[in-house]
């Protein structure tokens, strides 16, 4: 990889953060390879933890979407529109995921492992694709006259996706291929889709890293860290055998860490 002029401004702490972001999760997952570390949480305790993680990530995603959309109204950047739409989709679909988790009350649909996984995949696939497009498509400015219409269109698209997701897990869950089989674990389809999400996030992360090497911008650094942690979160969700086990817990911890990084990136934007 070529070194860019701005690379001189990248301080040692940034390199240390990036190395830790990669090394710590690798060490954690290697440790879990020892059978002694495999534990299954009490469902009630897990449910409280899960609700906390999802509420936090939904709030952070909504905040990032709001700031992005305000920014889009100001300068019409396609990059920031796609970023905001990605996070709005995360916020909406992760809310459905939380409500669909096994053990949650039957409010709008019957909660269950496959229902929660489908909502999760809707969130991850749409989020990963939109983040990738935001990071890699060339910058283009929307004319001021149509910005509000485009924003409404983006919100409508997320609303449509959320309604489709809710309908699918309510009405079509018995028709859709299973993602998780009790006693056996995850299906190959689910693992394959998580692989694709992780790969897409990896390309986005590399694009952010390249951006950071050009600009030494701290917001981009924290988003690079956030996306990297998200990839390690996905690894946890490829490995679990029980929805309350240590891999699922760790996946959610890394997701929480990823959104803390995104939140720091938003706060440090100056």
């Amino acid at each position, binding site marked *: 990889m070529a070194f860019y002029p701005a690379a001189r401004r990248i301080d040692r702490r940034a390199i240390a953060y990036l190395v830790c972001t990669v090394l710590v999760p690798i060490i954690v997952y290697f440790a879990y390879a020892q059978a002694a570390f495999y534990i299954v949480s009490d469902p009630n305790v897990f449910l409280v933890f899960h609700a906390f993680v999802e509420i936090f990530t939904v709030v952070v995603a909504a905040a990032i979407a709001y700031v992005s959309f305000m*920014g889009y109204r100001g*300068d019409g950047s396609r990059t920031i529109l796609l970023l905001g739409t990605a996070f709005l989709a995360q916020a909406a679909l992760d809310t459905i995921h939380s409500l669909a988790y096994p053990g949650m009350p039957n409010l709008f649909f019957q909660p269950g492992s496959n229902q929660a996984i489908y909502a999760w995949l809707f969130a991850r696939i749409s989020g990963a694709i939109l983040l990738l497009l935001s990071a890699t498509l060339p*910058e283009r400015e929307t004319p001021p006259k149509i910005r509000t219409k485009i924003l409404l269109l983006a919100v409508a698209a997320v609303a449509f996706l959320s309604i489709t997701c809710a309908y699918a897990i309510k009405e079509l869950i018995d028709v859709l291929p299973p993602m998780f089989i009790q006693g056996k674990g995850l299906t190959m389809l689910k693992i394959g889709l998580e692989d694709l999400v992780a790969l897409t996030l990896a390309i986005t992360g590399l694009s952010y890293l390249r*951006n*950071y090497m050009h600009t030494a*911008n701290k917001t*981009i650094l924290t988003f690079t860290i956030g996306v990297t942690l998200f990839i390690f979160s996905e690894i946890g969700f490829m490995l679990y055998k029980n929805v309350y086990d240590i891999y699922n817990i760790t996946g959610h911890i890394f997701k929480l860490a990823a959104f803390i990084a995104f939140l720091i990136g938003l706060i440090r*934007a100056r």
Partner: protein
Amino acid sequence: MRVSTGISALDAMLHGGLMRGDVTLVVGSAGTGKTTLALQYLVNGATKFNENGLYITFEQMPAQIYRDAASFGWDIRKLEAEGKLRVVCTSPPVLVQFVEERNPIDAIISEMSAKRIVIDSISNLESFIPASELRGELYRLVNHLKMKELTSIFTAESQEVFGDHLVVTGVGLSFLVDCIILLRIVEIQSSLKKALTVLKIRGSDHDKQLREFEITPQGIKIAAAFAQYEGVLTGAPRRSTTEAFTEAFKKGKKI
């Protein structure tokens, strides 16, 4: 009844223009464009709205004003020859006598049927009138102009170029005038830009935004508001979180 300045964006900020017969204070530090704005108001009045104007200056000689105005394409000599505009270079004591009967400035106003007047700059009065009397003299001057139904612009120099300590004038003139337009130099991304805002208009609503403006070969051009910045009036604005966040993601793509 509104009086158009002839600068469409400024008229829009004033919700139609200055109020007829009002006194407006244009305040700013050196080099912000106070004289240009005031001259443009008079030239537009004479050429576009058939309103004759009088320009009273204490600082510059007429030749200098003709030359500076010519750089904007304004032919002051021609307007003077047509009786539409008059430049008077005088001293502050003469202006103070202006309120007395049978003074030369009053005679010029009557002779040319002036509707607009600019006094550039009111700050010069501070050097000639004792501080204890200054406010009273200004009060008499403002009332005299209003009785004559002149739509007036006073320019005033503010001492501070940057900083968050803003004093419009030191003699309480801001209470006497009807409208205040503030011109300011601000630093944005290591370059100096000019900002304009309307601080007040008595009896009317107005645009409260701070707008960027430039002095172009055609005079003052007002651009968009500094919507993405906070603390512009301090002279050293910070980007808002929204702007900084957006810029972070866009910037890397431009390289």
